[in-house]
């Protein structure tokens, strides 16, 4: 009596009651399919967010004035252009630094007119934010010192304004001021969240003198929306952050105990926050899946108990012709494990199919990973084993003569 023989007997017993076996498996199928599909969607989302964030530029550090400081009691302070000059001069292990000021403005080409966010930048902006040029050139130091009225368009902004025309050399108006298009950026192709392809970039100095107006000044000092830095190496990111925080405290007259009225953040922090969120979500989903598998397992146990009762005479007969306790135990255990494993496999297929359909809708590119499949498979087997033990034990414990006389 080997295990193959047992599996054959189990399959026959399950096949004899196809509808019942199918319905019993349904609990496991739905549970496993839910796990696989949800995890595939979750991982797909994480991947797309991660790649978006990475698309913002490698080793990126952003400095900006903090808002909502009222709770901490700290005074909000603007970030000055002079801060940028000091940081650029005094920090080490920085390979790019770009000050920027953002404002919203009315942009028009011909009859196309719409509201855009205009960013005043320096030449380092392209490298720090990981933009590449598709056509023409980027903003240069010369543009800044000459305060030229030139503009570089994000790929989507170019399409929005020019609807397919080549924008190079043409003039657009920003709040009524003429700017000449000198470059178009390559699309970053990143999804959702950050409209990185809808940027409109002008030289920062041109912005101060012609576009931003009084809002970009604080007591006569030029204000920045943010400063972006690119650390030389991922391991240097935290070091650079410390340097920047030190300089800001020093120059704004703050001690170590004061709340820093600036956000100095890296995408690493953002990614780790993201990982924490997805980690929590994963635990949450797993818990729900665990509950549904548990319920499925109870369903299996219930049916197996009925089945043992129904087949009492058969068990008696098997014992009467020499089946040992352990053989009967194995027979029923193999049956439950088969039920839950077949359910698990069908669930994995169903879950993968659901994930595939979700991908086809274009909402999110799902990602079915092997480890989730393996976990589901073994968890399903475990559920079968766990919930199969009691009914199998009951079957094995039947006394042959009583089982044979059972009506």
């Amino acid at each position, binding site marked *: *009596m080997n295990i193959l*023989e047992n599996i054959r007997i189990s399959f*026959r017993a399950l096949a*004899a009651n196809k509808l019942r076996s199918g319905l019993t498996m349904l609990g496991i199928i739905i549970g496993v399919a839910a796990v696989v599909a949800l995890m595939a969607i979750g991982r797909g989302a994480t991947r797309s967010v991660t790649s978006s964030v990475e698309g913002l530029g490698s080793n990126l550090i952003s400095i900006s004035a903090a808002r909502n400081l009222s709770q901490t009691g700290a005074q909000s302070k603007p970030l000055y252009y002079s801060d940028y000059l000091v940081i650029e001069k005094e920090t080490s292990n920085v390979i790019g630094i770009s000050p920027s000021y953002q404002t919203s403005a009315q942009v028009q080409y011909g009859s196309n007119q719409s509201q855009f966010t205009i960013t005043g930048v320096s030449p380092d902006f392209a490298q720090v934010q990981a933009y590449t040029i598709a056509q023409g050139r980027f903003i240069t130091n010369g543009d800044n010192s000459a305060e030229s009225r030139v503009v570089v368009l994000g790929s989507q902004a170019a399409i929005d304004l020019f609807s397919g025309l080549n924008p190079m050399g043409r003039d657009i108006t920003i709040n009524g001021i003429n700017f000449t298009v000198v470059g178009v950026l390559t699309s970053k192709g990143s999804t959702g969240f950050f409209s990185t392809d809808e940027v409109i970039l002008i030289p920062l100095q041109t912005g101060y003198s012609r576009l931003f107006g009084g809002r970009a000044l604080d007591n006569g000092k030029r204000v920045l929306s943010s400063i972006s830095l690119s650390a030389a190496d991922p391991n240097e990111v935290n070091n650079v952050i410390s340097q920047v925080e030190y300089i800001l405290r020093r120059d704004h007259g703050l001690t170590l105990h004061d709340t820093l009225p600036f956000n100095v953040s890296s995408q690493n922090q953002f990614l780790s926050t993201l990982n924490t969120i997805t980690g929590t979500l994963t635990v949450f989903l797993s818990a729900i899946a665990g509950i549904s598998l548990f319920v499925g397992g109870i369903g299996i146990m219930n049916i197996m108990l009925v089945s043992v009762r129904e087949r009492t*005479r*058969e068990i*008696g*007969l*098997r*014992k*009467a*012709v*020499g*089946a*040992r*306790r*352990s*053989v009967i135990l194995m027979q029923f255990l193999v049956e439950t494990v088969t039920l839950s494993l077949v359910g698990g496999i069908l669930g994995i297929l169903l879950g993968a199919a659901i994930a595939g359909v979700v991908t086809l809708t274009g909402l999110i590119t799902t990602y079915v990973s092997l480890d989730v499949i393996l976990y589901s498979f073994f968890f399903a087997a475990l559920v079968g084993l766990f919930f199969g033990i009691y009914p199998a034990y009951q079957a094995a414990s039947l*006394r*042959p*003569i009583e089982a*044979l006389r059972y009506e």
Partner: protein
Amino acid sequence: MIELENVSKIYKLGQNEVRALDGIDLQIQAGEMVAVMGPSGSGKSTLMAILGCLDVPTEGVYRLEGEPVEKLNENQLAQVRSRKVGFVFQQFNLLPRTSALENVILPLLYDGVHGKARTEKAKAALITVGLGDRINHRPNQLSGGEQQRVAIARALVNDPTILLADEPTGNLDTKTGEEIIGLFQKLHQEKGQTVVYVTHDAFIARHTQRIIRLVDGKIISDDPVTHPILAGTPRPEEAGEIK
């Protein structure tokens, strides 16, 4: 071969004790063919269950081939059932939706017989009971008599030393019943197996060598049959049923 010494089987039903068997002393020699008779509730089936190691006595000693059965553990009892005893029930007890061949294979399966030898032995047993042309039929495709033959093939497939038949013809018509007792006679003669056969039918009982009568769990008579009837002998019209 079979020795029972003061064997009792006591069931407790609430406050009451039911002595299904009450101090049975019995010896059956190897190669004997014995009929057990008695009214319903006289303890015939309990006796058979104990002889077949499906149950153990509450009191007394049962020695099978000299070995006291009480001392065997559950697995050893299973092995005795698998190798030494072949049991035929009134309700055939065949597995449904399972071919005759696979029903007969069952005891071999649990005895660890593998491969071709297993199928050959099972086929041989089916041929012995005259079902060589029905091996792939399922129980629901067979008549009552044929089903009981499959059950007999299953009982003898492992060459047991004892064949126990608990009213095997109880659910069959008289003619088929006589064919079945004929089959047991043949097995007894050809293979020398010990046969213990429970029946209500005195005519059938006289096909054996010895008739034991039970009433209320006690043996009230134990007589040899001087001239066992050969199977196929017509049933006498009047003297048929002796109650």
